[in-house]
C-alpha cells in the first residue's frame, strides 16, 4: 500500500513538473532578478557606477517619509474600496440569487462595468469630474465650480468610486457562488423555528459563506493594494494620492533607478505576501472548522 502510494506521489510530481518549471521560468526568475537588482546601486543612466550595496536601498526606502505616506494612501484606498465593494457586492449577489425574472439579463447588466478596461473607466470618471468637460458639476446639489481632482479628499473619493464602480461586479460574482452553496433546508428549518430574514442572514447565510467571503476579500485586497491604472490616469499621484505602485513606477521607469526601484517592488511583493498569508490563515481555519462540523 505504501509502495503504491509512493509511486502515485512520484507520478503526481512528474505530472506537475512541466507546470512547475514553467512557473519557475516566468515568475521565479523575474522575482529573483528583482531581488538581485534591489541589492545594487544601479541607475541605467550611469551604468558604470553599478555596484553591490547590500540592503542600503531597503534602508533608504524604509526610512523615507514618502514610502510610508504612500503605504498609508494605499491602505486608505484599499480599505475604503474593499469594504464598500463587500457591502454592495453582497447586496447585488442577494438580488441576483433571488431574481426570478430575467436572471440572465440582471447578471449580464451587473457585469458590464467589470468588462470595461480599467484605463478607459478611469478616463471616463476623470472627465466626468473635470470642471471643463464633466457632467458632475451640472448635477443638482453640486457646486458649479467643484473640482474634486484638485484636492486630496476629493481625489481619493473619485479613485475609490472608480474602483468600486469597476470591481463590485467581480465581488458580487464571487459572493454569488458562495450564496449558491447555502442549502435551502437550513433556511426552512430556521423559518419553522421562527427566525426572521435578518436573523437568518446573519446566523445562517453569513457563517456558511465565510470561505467565499474570505476568497473574495483576498482577491480584491491584493488587487486594491497594487492599484495603479486608476491613480495613474486620474491624478498620477498628485494631491497626496500617490500609492506604492506609483512610487515604484516613478523610481523604476521614470528615474530608471533600477536599484531603489526594485527595492520598492520587492517591498510591495512582501506586503502582498503578508496580506495573502493573513487571509489564507483565516480561510484555512474557517474551512477546517466547517469540515469538523460536517463530520
Amino acid at each position: 500500500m505504501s509502495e503504491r502510494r509512493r509511486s502515485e506521489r512520484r507520478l503526481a510530481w512528474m505530472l506537475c513538473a512541466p507546470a512547475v518549471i514553467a512557473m519557475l521560468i516566468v515568475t521565479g526568475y523575474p522575482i529573483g532578478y528583482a531581488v538581485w537588482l534591489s541589492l545594487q546601486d544601479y541607475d541605467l543612466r550611469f551604468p558604470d557606477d553599478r555596484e553591490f550595496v547590500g540592503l542600503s536601498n531597503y534602508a533608504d526606502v524604509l526610512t523615507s517619509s514618502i514610502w510610508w505616506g504612500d503605504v498609508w494612501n494605499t491602505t486608505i484606498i484599499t480599505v475604503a474600496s474593499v469594504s464598500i465593494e463587500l457591502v454592495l457586492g453582497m447586496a447585488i449577489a442577494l438580488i441576483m440569487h433571488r431574481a426570478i425574472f430575467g436572471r440572465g439579463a440582471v447578471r449580464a447588466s451587473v457585469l458590464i462595468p467589470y468588462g470595461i478596461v480599467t484605463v478607459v473607466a478611469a478616463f471616463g470618471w476623470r472627465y466626468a469630474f473635470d470642471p471643463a468637460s464633466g457632467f458632475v458639476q451640472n448635477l443638482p446639489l453640486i457646486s458649479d465650480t467643484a473640482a474634486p481632482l484638485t484636492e486630496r479628499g476629493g481625489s481619493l473619493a473619485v479613485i475609490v468610486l472608480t474602483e468600486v464602480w469597476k470591481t463590485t461586479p467581480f465581488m458580487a460574482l464571487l459572493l454569488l457562488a458562495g450564496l449558491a452553496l447555502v442549502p435551502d433546508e437550513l433556511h426552512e428549518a430556521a423559518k419553522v423555528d421562527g427566525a426572521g430574514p435578518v436573523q437568518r442572514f446573519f446566523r445562517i447565510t453569513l457563517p456558511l459563506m465565510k470561505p467565499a467571503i474570505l476568497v473574495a476579500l483576498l482577491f480584491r485586497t491584493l488587487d486594491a493594494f497594487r492599484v495603479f491604472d486608476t491613480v495613474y490616469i486620474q491624478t498620477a499621484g498628485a494631491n497626496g494620492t500617490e500609492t506604492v505602485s506609483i512610487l515604484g513606477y516613478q523610481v523604476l521607469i521614470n528615474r530608471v533607478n533600477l536599484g531603489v526601484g526594485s527595492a520598492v517592488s520587492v517591498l510591495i511583493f512582501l506586503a502582498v505576501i503578508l496580506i495573502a498569508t493573513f487571509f489564507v490563515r483565516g480561510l484555512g481555519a474557517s474551512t477546517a472548522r466547517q469540515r469538523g462540523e460536517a463530520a
Partner: protein
Amino acid sequence: MRREGRSRWWIAAVLVALGIAGCGSDSEGGGGARTLNWYVFNEPGGAYEQAVKTCNESARGRYRINYVRLPTDANQQRELIVRRLAAKDSDIDIIGMDVIWTAEFAEAGWIKPWTGARQRAARAGRLAGPLKTVEYDGRTWAAPFTTNTQLLWFNKDKVPTPPAGITWDELIDRAAKAGTGIEVQGNQYEGLTVWVNALIAGAGGEIVGEQGQDRVGPTAETAARIVHKLATSRAAPPGLATNKEDEARLGFESGRSSYQINYTFIYASAAELPGGFQKKIGWARYPRTVADRPSRPPIGGINLGVGAYSKNPDLAFDAAQCLARPENQLVASEKGGLPPTTEAVYDDPKLQKAFPFADLLRESIEAGAPRPVTPAYSDISLAIQRTFHPPDEIDPDEVVSKLRERIEKAGEGKIF
C-alpha cells in the same frame, strides 16, 4: 496512425513558411536603400510625413527614413526610448528628442555627438535659445529642428489694453479685478516645471548647474509667491491644479478666462472655431517675474539626435541633417504649428502668414530660458513638481529648503 502523419506534415509546412518569412525580412535590409528608423512623436498635421518623403526622395536610394510614431505625451516618449537605448537597441537611428533629454542621453552614451562639418551644419543660422538645448559638456549633441515657446494670449473683446511688458503680479490683480481667469498649466507634470523654471529665470535665478549642483535661491521663493498668489486669487480658473495645455486652451475658448499662457498651437486650433474666434485672440510677451527684468519665456521643441547603437550612423547623421533643413522647418510650422529654429525662416512670408505673431515669437525664443541642462533632469523636474504642487497649498517660506532637500536626495539617487 494516419492522423499523426498528417499533423507532422502540417508542422513541417508551418516551419517552412516561417523560414521563408524569416529570409524575406532579412533580405529587405540587405540590398538597396538602408532603412533608418526615426523615433519621434506622432505629428497629426502630416508635417513629419512630408519631411520624410522629401528627404527620402533627395536621398536617391542611399537611405529610406522610416517614421516610427511615438505617443504625444513627452514622458511616455522618453520612457519608451530610454528603455530601448538602455538595452542597446540598434533599431533606433534618429531620435526626435524633447529639448530636456540632451544631457541625460549624452551622459549615458545613448547618442552620438555632432562634430566637424556636421556640427557646423547643425548650428548654422540657428537661434540662440534652441542652440542652448543641444549643448552639453562643451559639445553639440543634436540638430535643433523645431522649437516652441509660450506667449501671453488674451481675448481682445474683453481686454481693452494689451498686457505688454506686464508683470505676473499686475496680471493677476488685473484679471481678478475684471472677474476673469488666467489659464496656466498647474497639473503635477512637466508643464508645471516649465512654468516654475520660467518664473525663476525671469527673476534672474537658476535651479541647478550642469553637474546637477543645487543653485536654488531666493528666486524660487519669488516664483512660489506668484504661483501661490494666482492659485489662491479670484483669477484662478477652477481645476487649475489639474490643467494641462489642452484644458487651458478649452478654458480660454469657453470664455471662462480672458488670459492664457500657452504654446502657439492654440492659435491654429482656434481657426476651426465658429464666430471668428481666432480674430479675437491677442498676444503679448510672457509676463515678467519682477518689474525690472525682461521675462525669460520657456523653450520647448524637438532636436534630432543620432542613436549610439545605430548600424548606419553616417547615413543617420545625413538623414537627420536633411530632416532639420529650413524647408522642412517651414512645413512643420505651416502644418504642425511648430516654430522653426533657423532664424532666416522667420522672414519667409509663408511663416508670417501661419504665425502673424512671428516677430514676437522670434524675440521670445531668442530671450528664452531653457530648462536645466543636467543628466539628472527627470529627477530635478520631479522634485520641482512635488515642491510646487498643489499650487494653492505651497508655503513660499518653505519652498527653498524643501526644493534643496529634494534636489540633494535626487542627486544621491534616493527617494524624495
